[in-house]
């Protein structure tokens, strides 16, 4: 029975990867479209609503299927062309994510426990959470332009996870048999989702700031994205949510460490890196209130913080000696 569910899980994750690839390509095409469009941006801006209205009536007149055409035009008010690649990319991401979540669930059913007890499972679940956060955040803000980053990142992580980190389902060692495995690891993975989006926003923010400073950049799609200050605000808000979760992860980890190892803090390598990451993001939050650090410098901190998370998950897990030796490899 276990093996059946394990294979369902793998089929689901491979299918999800295939569709993520499609979504990634579509997101990339959308960025290219934005670049092309930004060339006529000046025209579109001056013509403004008139062009939009004219465009939609033209579509209405030309197309026999009037209803379909109108919904397309209406849904993208103001823009002369509908971002159909973007919408398609988002649909693909949602589809891939559903399969991805299915893979996580099947893995959990197969193992009869939470599916995040070794590195393969962390990768599987954390990427599902990263994409999940990306999708849910869309209800709050239109951050679809980060799609290529998020799908690309998840695809890479899943690729490494399935090829290099894969282990069979084995029972939990006594040290992992704790309710804190459910809480501590889940919140840690979830905060990774927020930090990933914030890091992506910060990268775009840096590019945008360069463009605004008058540096010649070939990335013309930046014209269609929010100004750097807006990107910074969005990155900050996501980071803050991630930071609260990370603080909780740290404390929950300490509580668990006290139960399992007899001390709540012992400067184990993983504890050290969790602390380092916490400090970097604490620095990021303070940087925004410090003259001379707002803007690009604090953006770098957000990126360094996310890089430290990836380092903590990969290099520290695999090559550093410590008590968190649960990679299963």
């Amino acid at each position, binding site marked *: 029975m*276990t093996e059946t569910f394990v294979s369902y899980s793998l089929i689901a994750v491979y299918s999800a990867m295939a569709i993520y690839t499609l979504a990634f390509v579509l997101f990339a095409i959308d960025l290219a479209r934005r670049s092309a469009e930004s060339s006529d941006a000046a025209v579109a801006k001056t013509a403004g609503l008139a062009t939009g209205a004219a465009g939609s009536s033209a579509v209405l007149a030309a197309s026999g299927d009037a209803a379909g055409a109108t919904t397309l035009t209406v849904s993208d008010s103001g823009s002369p062309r509908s971002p159909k690649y973007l919408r398609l990319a988002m649909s693909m991401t949602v589809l891939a994510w559903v399969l991805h979540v299915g893979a996580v669930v099947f893995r959990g059913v197969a193992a009869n426990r939470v599916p995040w007890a070794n590195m393969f499972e962390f990768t599987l679940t954390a990427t599902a959470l990263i994409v999940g956060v990306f999708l849910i955040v869309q209800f709050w803000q239109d951050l679809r332009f980060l799609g290529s980053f998020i799908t690309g990142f998840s695809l890479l992580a899943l690729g490494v996870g399935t090829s290099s980190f894969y282990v069979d389902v084995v029972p939990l060692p*006594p040290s992992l048999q704790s309710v804190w495995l459910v809480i501590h690891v889940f919140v840690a993975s979830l905060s990774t989702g927020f930090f990933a989006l914030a890091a992506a926003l910060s990268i775009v923010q840096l590019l945008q700031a360069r463009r605004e400073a008058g540096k010649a950049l070939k990335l013309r799609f930046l014209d269609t994205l929010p100004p750097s200050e807006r990107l910074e*605000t969005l990155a900050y808000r996501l980071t803050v949510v991630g930071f609260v979760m990370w603080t909780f992860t740290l404390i929950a980890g300490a509580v668990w460490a006290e139960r399992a*190892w007899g*001390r709540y803090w012992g400067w*184990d390598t993983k504890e050290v890196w969790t*602390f*380092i990451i916490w*400090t970097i993001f604490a620095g990021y939050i303070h940087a925004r209130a410090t003259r001379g650090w707002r803007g690009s410098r604090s953006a770098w901190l957000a990126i360094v913080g996310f890089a430290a998370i990836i380092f903590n998950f990969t290099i520290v897990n695999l090559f550093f000696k410590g008590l968190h030796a649960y990679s299963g490899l």
Partner: protein
Amino acid sequence: MDAPETQGKVQQPKLGFVGYARFFWRQLTSMRTALFLLLLLAVAAVPGSLVPQVSSDPNGVIAYRNNYPDTAAVLDFFQVFTTYTSVWFSSIYLLLFISLIGCVLPRTKHHFDALRARPPKTPARLSRLQGFTTETTDADVATTIQSAQRLLRSQRYRTELYGDSVSAERGYLRETGNLVFHAALVGVLVAVGIGGGFGYTGQRVVVEGYAFSNSLASYDSFNPGRFFSDEALEPYSIALDSFEPVYEQVIREAIGQAIDFTAYVTTTIRGEESQSAQIKVNEPLALGGTSVYLLGNGYAPVLTVRDADDAVVWSQPTACLPFDANLGSTCIIKIPDGLDQEIGMLGFLYPTTGTLSSGALASVYPDLIAPTLTLEVYAGDLGLDNGQSTNAYALNTDSLEQIAGRTSDVETLKLTPGDTVDLPNNLGSVELTSIPRFVSLDVHHDPSQLPVLVFSILVVAGLVTSLFVPRRRMWVSAAVDSSGRTRIEYAALARGDDPNLEAAVSEFAEKHSQQLTTKVGS
């Protein structure tokens, strides 16, 4: 040479001691310095994760010293093996905390003042502020302002009337949360520093059927805190009745993997009745103000050694150190008295014996299914009489001669439970009487735990309120317009990050004008 230099110097005012002290204090408590120290702390924590630490990996440190003695000397100079208690790491975090306190104290005073102050005067031009909204109503100016004030109060704003306008402020909790967060961080540090000093940790190996008491003499190793005194040890004893591991037997990839460890114990606090209890990994036993953790286990074979006249000279369990996942273990037995010669034995225990292709024995499963104990026997001087302390888990063979084993005429002794074999040189015999299990228990008393937990909860609570409670000012002003109706203006000002400010103003304006309409209509 000197003259032009003195002339070119800018004449600075002399600061004096107090002046310099104030200058450094200002520098230290500035946000820029705090941020620098914070990031420096992150960087300073890195080396401790690259090099083994005495606190978390003492054996790693010993191995490192042996392998790279030159590098180790340099690392020792910079206290890298004890990074987190080193002078440089400590000075960074202490400076950071001083900076933090220096920043938080004046802010606390300022916040107290703000809590008692009236909301500020309504700005002359609300249209310049965020979320500026206007409405017109048939209600008169006084009614309009009164109902605005009432509505603001119901939304937990503090309000103040200024002419035909109301000024309101809310979200003082944001700053309170911020201050609580920082104060709680100081609390964590102080609790760890002081509370930890009163604690102690002790390690003890207990074999099935044996007991140990919570006293200094009975611990194998003991680490007292700075302020520890012997009276801190609660008088109790713990007897290990049995230890029951469960190993995976079905899933092929995981056969032999431990899935459960349970130690069944009987505890006795002096003057009270004995009680049965169990200790598991992740489920420590709370006893007499201490927590007792199950951190390791293995086998402790009981050997009975008899002399040439068949008189028992030794009969006790020896805890063997496991060296692999299937509990293949090394046993060291030292018998200084009773036989004609001092005897040392180096044993290998295989709980479930298998044979490798090389012919060597190995353990293939951690449970006790087909155990074998092999013994290499040494005779000579054990080095126990010269007063120096020796490691019970190592056998120094410098002054010993192998009398049974690979390099002697007699083959390595091989025993299964119940077997008795003769010792060489007509010394007597050795019997493998039984193979009970042992557990290694850690006893911790840490008075800092509870305060650290409480402060940690305050850290999270303070953080959440300081980041998510919006602090904002809102103004409502009313005036009669040219058509004789009342024109109401609404606007707000964010203090700190406030994503929903504009929505809050328009929502308020809508609610307020609705209230006015119903009032006028009725």
